[in-house]
């Protein structure tokens, strides 16, 4: 998959990014002048009124635009679905119209957002977004567009899909702009540094900001972008913020004032200018008059080593950054079990715990011989990104797994790892380059780990110079000088510390180390780990890979940050430790109540401890049958009678869940594993994204000892059919909350029946009732979660 279309010879007109480049202004505003109605499809004018589109292009060309933009902002298959036009009709005609008048000027193929929210919040998948953009780009490139302009992006994931589609399906230069709100972030939360860090690496030719704000409001955002972007920066502001006049939104920054801002921007270092909503050929003419007297400014760009999630960029070097190591099955029995059983919740919980303990980046390794690593890695990355906002480190020995994960990753990932072996560098560096990732380089090569610091520096040098041959900047490489174990190679432990110093001072790259390797095979490993960590930090280690749940490690880092003047005024240290003793004391008091009343009162913090206490004298099943089930029955009855309401029911359910967790862990280690009362598949049906109700049902069913396969939301009927077939499932629970999605609920039931699967289907959701449920072929309707439990217990004969 690696590799883009060769750029040579294919660019039709030479584009000089070293000089100013003037784009055009708004298409929509001009169309309004020509009488387009609100809600009319602007792109339909390419077919219905090509003369008007042509006229608009000519007006901009006459005003001085070097680039005109095709009338294709919304010309994607989703927006055109309900119209008479195909993407081919619209994009094809748009490029032809622009080319017809452009002569020696350039034509930019305009690509706007698809208009649907992407997964996980929405239903548009990364691959569907990619395919949608690819369709537009192939047509536009074929028709002879000179540039691809991806603009007005709010979601950096969507921008990423569009850029990949542009790079993989054309050889044209690509420019990408995003739109910011006045809080300095896009609507989906991306800040300027994150945008630059993610997009710059994807091989675009210029990047910047457009729409949403006026020129004045954009200045702070532009300042940030200019600080970090080593690419040319483009700005296309609206003509001010919209104001309502006679019920209509108008933009009132006039041409002269607009051009004064353009001048300021050009003096700051912006080289590509144009306008968005509310701007006309007057605005473009005014900019033209201003910039013809200016010269592009040379900028000082700050090169940083940084990885990003969609809304958080972690910069290495400013302070110590912790890479959490716990999502890795090596030596972790519970994680292995979770991976084998598809128990993603366990992995997600590990991520949450590490985040809460202060990790900055999370390593993700799911390599187990008995699972499909590629499929599990992709799914894990997607799920992790929907739950935690930290950048991820993708850790695998398989290049195909790394590429698949990096491709669907949202942000700029860290790849773990390459080393000095030619074969490894030649398979991993193209991925690093193409997807704009950071990568860890291990100082080991065909001859093993060099004994001395100097030897490791040599390997590091080779890695860095080979990376540069691939076009990867040094700032995207993080060197791991490799920690040896004191029990086996005691004399070489300090060579690692020396190597960190040497590599940093010679190569100027950031460094990482897997710290806890040092203590393998020795008792009280924490003592060695923290002491070694302190030494490594002193030597200049930037990003230790460690267990953030270890108090030894985190306290060492907190202390180091104070002593090395990184935690200014000891603010974080004081925050963490000033009330430290008080907190642990508070946890000790108040466990005198019995488990039953703890459950009924929903005191979830106390459940684990008292369950452990009970298990000293009772078997697991005795605790379940004496405490958990009877208390749940009481709570269920109280809920049904209206004595308690939903949040109270749920608090009790979560309390039982805590208890159950302890019990399940015990049973995993003991021989008697027969706890499950039966397995149930749950899903929110295709097209529906409401899943709180389904999650409530899930926790209650689990409370009663059922195993739940939760297929999630927006689940295609094939996925339900497969899950039921492969698990030989007897009960399926389907949820839908909209009248519009009850239809797909019916289709799911039909698919189950058509496949002759002998299962009972139970349905629920706000718009359903007994009658409706029958109509769509369900076996039963449950009005709420407690009814579902009752039904399941009856079906599986638990009562």
């Amino acid at each position, binding site marked *: 998959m690696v590799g883009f279309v060769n750029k040579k010879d294919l660019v039709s007109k030479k584009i000089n990014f070293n000089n100013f480049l003037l784009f055009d202004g708004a298409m929509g505003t001009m169309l309004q002048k020509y009488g387009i*109605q*609100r*809600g*009319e499809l602007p792109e339909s004018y390419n077919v219905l009124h090509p003369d008007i589109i042509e006229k608009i292009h000519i007006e901009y060309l006459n005003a001085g635009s070097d680039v005109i933009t095709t009338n294709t902002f919304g010309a994607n298959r989703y927006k055109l679905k309900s119209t008479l036009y195909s993407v081919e009709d619209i994009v094809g005609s748009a490029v032809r119209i622009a080319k017809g008048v452009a002569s020696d000027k350039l034509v930019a193929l305009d690509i*706007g*957002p698809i*208009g*649907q*929210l992407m997964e*996980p*919040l*929405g*239903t548009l998948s990364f691959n569907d977004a990619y395919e949608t953009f690819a369709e537009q780009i192939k047509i536009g490139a074929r028709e002879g567009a000179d540039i691809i302009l991806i603009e*007005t992006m*709010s979601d950096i994931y969507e921008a990423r899909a569009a850029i990949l589609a542009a790079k993989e399906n054309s050889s044209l230069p690509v420019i990408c702009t995003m*739109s910011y*709100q006045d809080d300095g972030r896009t*609507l*989906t*939360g991306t800040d300027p540094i994150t945008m630059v860090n993610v997009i710059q690496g994807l091989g675009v030719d210029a990047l910047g900001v457009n*729409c*949403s704000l006026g020129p004045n409001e954009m200045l702070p955002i532009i300042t940030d972008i200019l600080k970090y972007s080593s690419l040319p920066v483009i700005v296309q502001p609206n003509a001010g913020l*919209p104001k*309502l006049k006679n*019920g*209509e*939104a108008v933009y009132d920054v006039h041409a002269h004032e607009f051009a004064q801002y353009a001048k300021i921007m050009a003096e700051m270092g912006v080289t590509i200018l144009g306008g968005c909503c509310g701007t006309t050929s007057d605005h473009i003419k005014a900019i033209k008059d201003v910039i013809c007297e200016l010269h592009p400014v040379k900028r000082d760009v700050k090169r940083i080593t940084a990885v990003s999630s969609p809304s958080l960029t972690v910069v290495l070097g400013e302070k110590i950054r912790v890479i959490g190591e716990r999502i890795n099955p090596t030596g972790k029995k519970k994680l292995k079990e979770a991976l084998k059983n598809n128990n993603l*919740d366990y992995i*997600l*919980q590990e991520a949450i715990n590490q985040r809460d303990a202060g990790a900055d980046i999370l390593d993700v390794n799911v390599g187990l011989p008995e699972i499909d690593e590629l499929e599990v890695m992709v799914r894990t990355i997607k799920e992790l990104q*929907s*739950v935690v906002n930290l950048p991820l480190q993708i850790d695998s020995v398989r290049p195909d797994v790394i590429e698949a994960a990096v491709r669907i990753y949202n942000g700029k990932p860290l790849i773990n790892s390459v080393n000095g072996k030619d074969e490894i560098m030649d398979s991993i560096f193209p991925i690093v380059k193409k997807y704009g990732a950071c990568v860890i380089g291990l100082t080991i090569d065909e001859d093993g780990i060099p004994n001395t610091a100097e030897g490791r520096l040599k390997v590091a040098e080779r890695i860095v110079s080979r990376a540069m041959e691939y076009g990867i900047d040094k700032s995207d490489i993080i060197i791991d000088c490799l920690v040896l174990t004191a029990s086996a190679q005691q004399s070489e432990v300090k060579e690692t510390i020396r190597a960190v110093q040497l590599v940093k001072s010679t190569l100027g790259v950031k460094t990482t180390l897997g710290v806890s390797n040092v203590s393998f095979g020795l008792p009280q490993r924490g003592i060695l780990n923290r002491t070694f960590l302190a030494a490594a930090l002193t030597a200049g280690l930037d990003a230790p890979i460690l267990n953030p749940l270890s108090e030894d490690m985190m306290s060492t880092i907190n202390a180091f940050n104070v002593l090395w003047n990184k935690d200014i005024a000891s603010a974080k240290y004081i925050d963490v430790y000033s009330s430290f003793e008080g907190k642990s004391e508070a946890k000790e008091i108040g466990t005198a109540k019995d488990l039953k009343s703890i459950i009924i*009162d*929903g*005191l979830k913090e106390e459940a684990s401890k008292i369950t452990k206490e009970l298990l000293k004298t009772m078997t697991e099943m005795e605790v379940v049958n004496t405490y958990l089930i009877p208390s749940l029955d009481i709570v269920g009855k109280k809920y049904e009678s*209206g*004595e*308690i*309401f*939903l*949040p*109270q029911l*749920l*608090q009790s*359910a*979560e309390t039982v869940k805590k208890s159950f967790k302890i019990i399940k862990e015990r049973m995993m280690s003991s021989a008697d594993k027969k706890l499950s009362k039966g397995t149930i598949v749950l899903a929110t049906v295709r*097209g*529906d*994204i*409401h*899943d*709180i109700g389904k*999650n*409530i049902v899930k*926790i209650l069913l689990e409370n009663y000892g059922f195993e739940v396969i939760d297929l999630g939301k927006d689940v295609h009927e094939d996925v339900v059919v497969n899950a039921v077939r492969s698990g030989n499932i007897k009960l399926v629970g389907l949820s839908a909350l*909209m*009248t*519009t*999605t009850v239809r797909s609920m019916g289709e799911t039931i039909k698919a189950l029946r058509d496949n002759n699967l002998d299962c009972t289907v139970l349905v629920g959701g706000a718009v359903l*009732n007994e009658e409706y449920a029958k109509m769509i072929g369900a076996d039963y309707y449950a009005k709420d979660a407690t009814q579902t439990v009752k039904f399941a217990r009856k079906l599986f004969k638990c009562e």
Partner: protein
Amino acid sequence: MEIDKKEVLRYLGYKNQKIDKNITDLIDICCKEIIDICSKHSVYEIFDIERKNNQIFLLGSTLVLKDKDIKDLLLGCEKCVVMAATLGAKVDSTIAYYSRFDITKGVIMDACASTAIEYVCDEVQDEIMKNALKDNLHITTRYSPGYGDFAIDNGAEILNILDAYKKIGLSITENSIMLPRKSVTALIGLSKTLSSKKHSGCADCKNIDCEFRKDGGFCE
């Protein structure tokens, strides 16, 4: 922004049960968190109305209203406000997070957000009312797709004419689910005379099994 705790409780199906401090504390925490994370955005425009062939046309736009209830609302109105508002995507992701790892909080956050988006709409409506009064116009109540017989698929067209995805990041799926979830589209009529059409609440609603159905309250 203020979130009315009584409303939150109503969304949670509260019917005067005895509640402990831990639940009321949790509601307080959730209200605060929703206010912290929400990024409220709204957009509206006002169109002149033309009546033709038993349909209402909003001039200068492609929106045509055919359903009885919405025509009733706009009876005697000369203009119609088309509005959309949202709490933004972070509210969705936060609720999704809690609904997976702390379901009690997830459910309460959801109720707080539902209350909050109504508050945002009230603010917008208030602004519309004040501006309308300057022109001696009165507003009707706010009416959304899905109320009465006003078909839910009108939501897509409302968002389209407002260019709502570009302006406030609000999208809608084929199944008329708005994303971000905590969002509203609505129409408000403007007329020279004080509107006689008040929201009639549950009495007029066809959803007779609705669990929120109760004395004078309504369920949007």
